[in-house]
């Protein structure tokens, strides 16, 4: 399978070429899968169950459990099919494996772009709420604890570093060393989640909840959706690590690993944006001196008015 010529637009293959001659598998295998339809309907059932549960229908939780169970099975099946097909390089509908990987790169990049837009909506709320409030933190609220935030930042950044080393070792043909780095990256991800959960419990215990006005809403929803993405990333890394153990990747061929890495770094970047805007900003703004203060005095009213004129 390694010696086909490309037949994408960038390739020298002339038009009119018999497709079967390019790739003997093309005409034999239909990509057919039951998992997309099951995924669609089970997601619907799960969300329907959540709505029913919140509206006190007794069967609501059963619908959630059923929908979620089917969804998990469908996702496992789907992922398994993808791994199988990619290993067999049967995805040849879309040209050579190189073409397929290029498509995956573009597609995954846009997927992360759509995730960025989802977070943008919640960051927009945060800035908007700040601009609306006379003071921030609102009266009666303390600043968020910066020390835990910095610890968590260090955890994610170091985890991202281990991930990069893991990828480096795959590219250089030393999968055993890659495994070690991946496991470390994964463990740091879980420690991050544990620390974050600890912080949530601490704050909730002190009476700061999601119902504590805009600050509580912004804090819990931004960190909550971020944490959810850390969980997704951790699942992704777990699968990739298992595939390293199964020797699925070669120095040239490991897009799943690249994609999981992009996702992990994206989660990292969102966290850093979150820490700067939500945790540290309120400490740092008081300590601006000299040119930083001058610059700040110019920027702050701009930021504030940008949010205020929309309200």
């Amino acid at each position, binding site marked *: 399978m390694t010696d086909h010529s490309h*037949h*994408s*637009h960038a*390739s020298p*293959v*002339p*038009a*009119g070429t018999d*497709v079967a001659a390019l790739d003997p*598998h093309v*005409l*034999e*295998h*239909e*990509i*057919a*899968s*039951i998992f*997309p*339809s099951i995924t*669609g*309907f089970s*997601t*619907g059932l799960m969300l*329907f169950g*959540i*709505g*029913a549960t*919140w*509206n006190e*229908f007794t069967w609501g939780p059963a619908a959630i459990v059923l929908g979620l169970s089917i969804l998990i099975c469908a996702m496992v099946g789907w992922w398994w*099919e*993808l791994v199988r097909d990619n290993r*067999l390089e049967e995805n040849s*509908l*879309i*040209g050579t494996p190189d*073409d397929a990987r*290029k*498509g995956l790169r*573009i*597609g995954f990049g*846009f997927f992360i*772009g*759509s995730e960025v*837009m*989802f977070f*943008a*909506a919640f960051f927009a*709320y945060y800035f908007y709420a700040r601009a*609306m*409030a006379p003071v921030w933190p609102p009266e009666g609220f303390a600043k968020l604890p910066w020390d835990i935030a910095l610890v968590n930042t260090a955890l994610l950044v170091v985890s991202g570093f281990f991930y990069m080393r893991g990828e480096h070792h795959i590219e250089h043909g030393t999968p055993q060393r890659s495994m070690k780095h991946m496991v470390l990256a994964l463990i740091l991800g879980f420690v991050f989640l544990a620390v974050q959960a600890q912080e949530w419990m601490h704050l909730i215990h002190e009476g700061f909840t*999601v*119902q504590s*006005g*805009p600050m*509580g*809403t912004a804090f819990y929803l931004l960190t909550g959706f971020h944490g959810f993405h850390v969980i997704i990333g951790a699942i992704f890394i777990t699968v990739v690590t298992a595939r390293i153990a199964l020797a699925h990747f070669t120095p040239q061929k490991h897009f799943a690993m690249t994609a999981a890495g992009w996702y992990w770094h994206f989660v990292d970047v969102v966290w850093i944006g979150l820490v700067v805007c939500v945790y540290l900003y309120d400490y740092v703004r008081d300590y601006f001196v000299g040119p930083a203060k001058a610059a700040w005095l110019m920027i702050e009213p701009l930021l504030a008015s940008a949010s205020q004129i*929309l*309200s």
Partner: protein
Amino acid sequence: MYSDHVQTTHPVADGHGHGEPEGGHGHAKRHPVLDWMMTTDHKKIGVMYLWTSFIFFLIGGAMALMIRVQLMQHNNTALTPDFYNQMMTMHATVMIFLAIIPAVTGFGNLALPLHLGARDVAFPRLNALGFWLVPAGGLVFLSSFLLGGASQNGWTAYPPLANSAYSPGIGVDLWVFGVHLVGTSSITGGLNFIVTIFNMRAPGVTFHKMSLFAWAWLVTSWLQVIATPVLAGAVTMLLLDRNIGTSFFRAEAGGDPILFQHLFWFYSHPAVYIMILPVFGIVSQIIPAFSQKKIFGYLPIAYSSVAIGLFGLVVWAHHMFATGINPWVLTFFMIVTLAIAVPTGVKIFSWIATMWGGVVEFKTPMLFCIGFIAFFTIGGLSGIMQGSIPFDIQVSGTYFIVAHIHYVLFAGSAVGLIAGFYYWLPKMTGRMYHEGLGQLHFWLTMISMNLAFFPMHFLGLQGMPRRVAYYAPQFETINQFIGYSAMVMGFAQLLIIAQIIYSLKFGEKAGNDPWNHHPDTKTFEWDIPSPPPAYNFEKLPVAR
């Protein structure tokens, strides 16, 4: 519908030692229902999208007729106020999220890979998921009728009305989940089409040679990926405000309902381009085909789509002229809104110039395109009127807005989609539709559509509020006139079913190219049989 062409022309030679790909041996024996549920063929998925959207079009149409029945008298008791509000909300929701967007996506699935010379979309399984999320979303939307009533907040679901204090019950919650499902469908579809266009064009199909339908989808798919997640965020915030006591939009808890409008329209204004740009693409294919003449202004049409997409992302607050936000900001939104008339005008003049001096054949697809140009333009012009702040403040909340939206979404999107239906129906079924019935469908639709929607302008200018089950007695005559016209218009659409049956059973064989395209207007799908075989091309197509 599609023959198992691949297997018959290329007998399977096993022996590659590759596990058991499903299609290899089980395909022929699979139950037809399972076959459709498992398919990843872009053409079959396109057909499923079109069927689904047509069924929801009929459901949404039935809801519209119930609204019109209530409005036949100024103080009618045909519907309860609650049920009227549910009909009003779900008519718009069904038409936008379950009829028009899936229909444009259906034609995109059907034709885009063929126009590019590709054998399928980039991610066939993801494409299938995108489709299945639509019926799943539809079921979630409609199930609310059985569980105490659907949302009564209009398709815009503005808080505070949509907050739990004023809209208790499951309706708004299921509405939000329905939006999540169809929104996810939109994002996956957009991702798929972006990669398909970037990565899967056949040799020689450069960006400046690909079809204008593909150009329209290139812009549309970007809008879907950029804007839809923000709607997901907005409705999620609404859901959390309703159910776990957050303070996103609840003023009493420190939130601001205006922010919902910003986030909602950040998606929902681009959404009107998601619903119209692919239709511009369809019209840009049909008009040259039936004028036997190369499209006039290929590049201006292509790049005007890009301009519309870019402008479309920064005009959202023109839906908020009446909210009292800073007038200087609104002035910016007004100017950009009015500027959109320029690229849209470029398209309209290019289509007319294409017909000019061409050999125009007035077959049904072409008739619907000409109807599209004529009457979409009315919606475009009333859009310019509303784009002006002083005028919009007067008509905001009146029937003038209803007139505008229906000229844009029915006379625009729906009429253009019907043109696409007639254009590609022979390609889908392999047989022709009935031309006389098609012309009847055209004239019935055009006349009744204008009789139904045009008087709404007058009602709006006279101050009749939209979205309300009762109105002042002096508007009764016009409302009755609209009601009867709407019924003719609604029932005329049943001719589509007749055409599908005729085309499947009785029509004459279509051959590769029933329209005898001029070589300058011909896309790849007209070089291969009708219906096209699985995986479309046995030989890489030759770019023209």
